[in-house]
């Protein structure tokens, strides 16, 4: 279960003077769901194209299922299904025909292809739309057809580039459930890229955070939080009237408080464990009216905010 199925070894992709991917090393284990998380233009798609041998790395090497993707892309593509982000189908053909065409490109016999297409259409819940022209499919249906299309070749690994882009919440839920099923029941290794944090959080075993062509951190959610935030595991938001420096000083002396930010009648207190009760007590003891206290632990939202949008304002990216 733990042998790597995708290995990236120090790969770089240079466009003119700029690195789209900058000496990236990554190993994805067989049977896991790995999420590649990063803002637009971070180099996620470029890395994926290199894994499929559709783009040549400037330096470094990529191995998928033990095969070098750059020198032997066809063998890799026989085993790997790829769902591109700007997915499209031949609109004048039905969903079923589109799947059959993919099958014929993979050298499947007609009979086998029809069986498989019917089975997969049923599995992704498109049985009713089997003979509908693909041009009439909704965005969510197209994405599900895309998933069926990827599965036609019976892949060992599927790589999904932004699989949930532009789909309504219910559709997203269904697709994520499907991906999870494929992983658990069929034992397919899944690599998905996204900038939508909550979804990645829901289904991925491990996540890699990708910014400006570099992998900032990798691991499961807990490890990530630790790597990225040292001890700031919680933020406690306090709303009180009035807030004075005496109060702030008192809170600062509490054990576990790392950092306090003040904004008008609000305080943001960064702590390493849950001390909201103590804080509440201090505020009440000082005869200050506490209107609101709220605790929040870190999700990917904060990670995202801090690293992608807030830039490096809170210091250098921590090295683990």
């Amino acid at each position, binding site marked *: 279960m733990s042998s790597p199925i995708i290995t990236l070894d120090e790969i770089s992709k240079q466009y003119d003077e700029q690195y789209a991917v900058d000496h990236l090393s990554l190993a994805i284990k067989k049977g896991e769901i790995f999420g590649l998380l990063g803002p637009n233009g971070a180099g996620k798609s470029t890395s994926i*194209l290199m894994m499929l041998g559709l*783009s040549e790395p400037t330096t470094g090497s990529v191995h998928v299922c033990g095969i070098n993707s750059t020198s032997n892309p066809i063998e890799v593509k*026989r085993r790997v299904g790829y769902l591109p982000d700007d997915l499209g*189908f031949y609109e004048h053909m039905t969903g079923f025909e589109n799947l059959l065409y993919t099958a014929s490109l993979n050298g499947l016999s007609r009979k086998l292809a029809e069986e498989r297409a019917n089975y997969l259409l049923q599995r992704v819940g498109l049985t009713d739309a089997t003979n509908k022209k693909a041009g009439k499919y909704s965005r969510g249906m197209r994405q599900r057809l895309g998933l069926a299309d990827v599965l036609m070749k019976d892949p060992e690994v599927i790589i999904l580039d932004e699989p949930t882009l532009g789909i309504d919440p219910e559709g997203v839920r269904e697709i994520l459930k499907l991906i999870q099923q494929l992983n658990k029941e069929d034992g397919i290794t899944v690599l998905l890229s996204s900038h939508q944090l909550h979804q990645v959080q829901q289904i991925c075993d491990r996540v890699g955070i990708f910014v400006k062509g570099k992998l900032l951190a990798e691991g499961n959610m807990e490890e990530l939080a630790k790597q990225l935030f040292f001890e700031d595991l919680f933020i406690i938001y306090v709303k009180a009237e009035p807030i004075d420096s005496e109060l702030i000083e008192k809170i600062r002396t509490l054990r576990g408080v790392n950092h306090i930010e003040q904004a008008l009648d609000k305080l943001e207190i960064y702590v390493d464990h849950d001390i909201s009760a103590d804080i509440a007590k201090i505020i009440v003891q000082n005869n200050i009216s506490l209107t609101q206290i709220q605790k929040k632990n870190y999700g990917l939202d904060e990670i995202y905010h801090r690293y992608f949008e807030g830039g490096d304002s809170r210091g250098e990216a921590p090295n683990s």
Partner: protein
Amino acid sequence: MERLQTLKGNIQKWFTIPNREKSSHMTAFQAIVRKEFTDYITSWRIIILLLIITFTCIGSLYTAITNIQDALDAAAEETKEVARSAFLFLKLFTISDGTLPSFITFVGFLGPLLGVALGFDAINSERNKGTLSRLMAQPIPRDFVLNGKFAAALLINALLFFALGFLVMSFGILILGIPPTLEEFLRIICFLILCIAYIAFWLNLGILFSVRFKQAATSALASIAIWIFFSLFYSMLVELLSKSILNPENIASTSDAISKQGLVLNLMRISPNYLFTESTTTLMSPSVRSLGPLTVEQTTGAIAGPLPLSQSLLLIWPQLTGLIAATLVCFALSYLLFMRQEVRSK
């Protein structure tokens, strides 16, 4: 050195593809050609063009037949023998009474349009629809997409022209009652092959633009612009130039005149349309003996008579190879561009 090694390895791999792989590649290629072919014959664009070409051909056939028949009726019985030796059958393709152009003029004019229509959105439409990246993720060599599209379009082209050519021939036999001689038949076959090569050039130009330009409209307009330039304006431009080149005041001797005439002719030959016209006239009118200027000395004593097929072919060989070379250059360019292009569309 390392590059050389990998190149050598690649070449070896190329020659030692296992059988299973080779056959699965072949079925994939067939699948692409089949799909593209179906797409073509079910698309309105191509259906309309095919209908236009068919109708104009029927029209020109009608005028040709009425003309020839009038001439035949007017002449006495024994002239039929003469008619046969004068390649009357070939006149089906070349004659016109001035109201409707002849078959070869039509093909020269509409053929490029068909070629461009077959090729101009080959790659960029796949790219814009987002199907290209999906295709590229399948276990097929990258050039299959380009080659498959080219093969399918060429197949349509060949089918259309052989069908049309044979139809014209059969109608000619039925209505005129004169069967073609073997030589006439061979000449017509050569003519049809020439038509296909000519349209293949425009097809490849269309494909080249479809690889180069991201928008189908841009590539269509660019190809049509080139087509109009060569079929209308290029000859005017050369005529304008030739006025100064062939100005009698500048010509010193006979050899000078001939070389200057040759220069003008070669300028004309840059246009694929001109190459096509030259070759078709030579093929379909066996009395054409030379495509360049002839001196009086060369023509004195020559007996006016038709050239045998082999000599006609020899005469147009440079034109034919030139056309095919232009086709190959276009294809090679689009191939190179396509192989180097990023798959990603946006």
